[in-house]
């Protein structure tokens, strides 16, 4: 699925295994603050999203992507480009 809602739902699925503390996942959940995911894990997550949608998400994009919603927006942009 390549619409915003579908992408968001799939991102939630990809994050679930990295969320052992079962933090509630929402648009404004932040990776560093709420999920406490370290930068290496974030990079692995990026790799799986790249493979999922056959896109390139350069690492230098990451500082601007703090929340799940922002990541979903970025992926949507890349997929529809």
């Amino acid at each position, binding site marked *: 699925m390549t619409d915003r809602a579908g992408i968001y739902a799939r991102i939630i699925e990809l994050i679930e295994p990295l969320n052992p503390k079962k933090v509630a996942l929402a648009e404004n959940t932040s990776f560093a603050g709420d999920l406490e995911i*370290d*930068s*290496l894990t974030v*990079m692995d997550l*990026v*790799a799986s999203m*790249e*493979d999922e949608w*056959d*896109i*390139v998400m*350069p*690492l*230098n*994009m990451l500082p601007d992507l703090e929340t799940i919603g922002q990541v979903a927006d970025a992926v949507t942009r890349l997929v529809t480009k």
Partner: protein
Amino acid sequence: MSDLFSKFDPLISERAGVLAKGVRDPFAIVMQQVKSPTVAVIDGRDTILLGTYNYMGMTFDADVIAAGETALRDFGAGTTGSRVLNGTYQGHKECEEALKDFYGMEHAIVFSTGYLANLGMVSTLAGKGDYIILDADSHASIYDGCYLGNADIVRFKHNSAEDLEKRLRRLPPEAGKLVILEGVYSMLGDIAPLKELVGIAKAHGAMVLVDEAHGMGFFGEHGRGVYEAAGVADDVDFVVGTFSKSVGTVGGFCVSNHPKFEILRLVCRPYTFTASLPPAVVACAATSIRKLMHAGEKRQRLWEMSRKLHGGLLARGFRLATETCESAIVSVLMPDQETTVRMWQAMLELGVYVNMSRPPATPAGVFLLRCSLCAEHSAAQLEIVLERFGQAAAMVGLFETAVEVAAE
């Protein structure tokens, strides 16, 4: 007002927790006296050095020391200047000549450290709109070079030709691309399948930079590195290296055959905006590099010692990061932070210094006791090391812990 140091609180308390258990700080070792490339005095005790990257034992080579002394006397203690102003001396040019001869390349540029060489090359070669494609386990200096520059950064799975291919395929064909690889990866001591990786990079029109920090001196016919041993010298555009390992002093460099290479001296900020190496250091480096061209016997000894340590540790039941001995780094896999620190300390108290490594420096969150060999290690020292490993493991109950972890 918030304290800018608050962000370090988690690390401060993690360290305090480890040290509260009565162990010595693994990151605060002081060498009170250095007796040879393989022995130093730590805590007043003679200690076998098994974690220095002094692969070829050049730090105390008589010719190297003599060259350094002469340069110190004749050219002074420092240059007080950048390479592009008053900081290029005869010695810096001689050092670059030695590198060109060693690598059989047209151009060589000397930086003040290997860290700065990567910082400079990576940030300058790839600019806005270009892509850097780097191995996920790349050294911090490569990552920092990415962050200093303006290129788009794409990471591929460590040593995976398939993943590199997949990521290159997704990039715009017309965009400039730099693929960055290392010959030896220093955490696990594994080597890169350069033949495949470089082949894929070239098939996608990328330029290739290989960091040979841990391969210089003893891989390949001329000791140029893993890329030479892999037979891909013609397809590697840039080789980065350091003087802080096999060469036995300090400094960094890049060599290349690119016809426009020399322009880097004016556009590469980590070259331009820092002081050049002191005359004694470049004199030591040049002498050492020239000697490394004819170090066949040392190379052979280094490999022999490395294989012996690798095999000996396996035979004693240790779990190692590589199945076979791939380089002069032998990494022992440890179960957790506490056992690693205790075992590291036990080794030190038994008179053997190894490196302790922990995440995030290590890949996949592993804890390691890392050993690096020196051509000057004697067979007797190696016997002692193996014995001490066994003793230290018993002292900390390593094999009991390891069994529990495996059973989980």
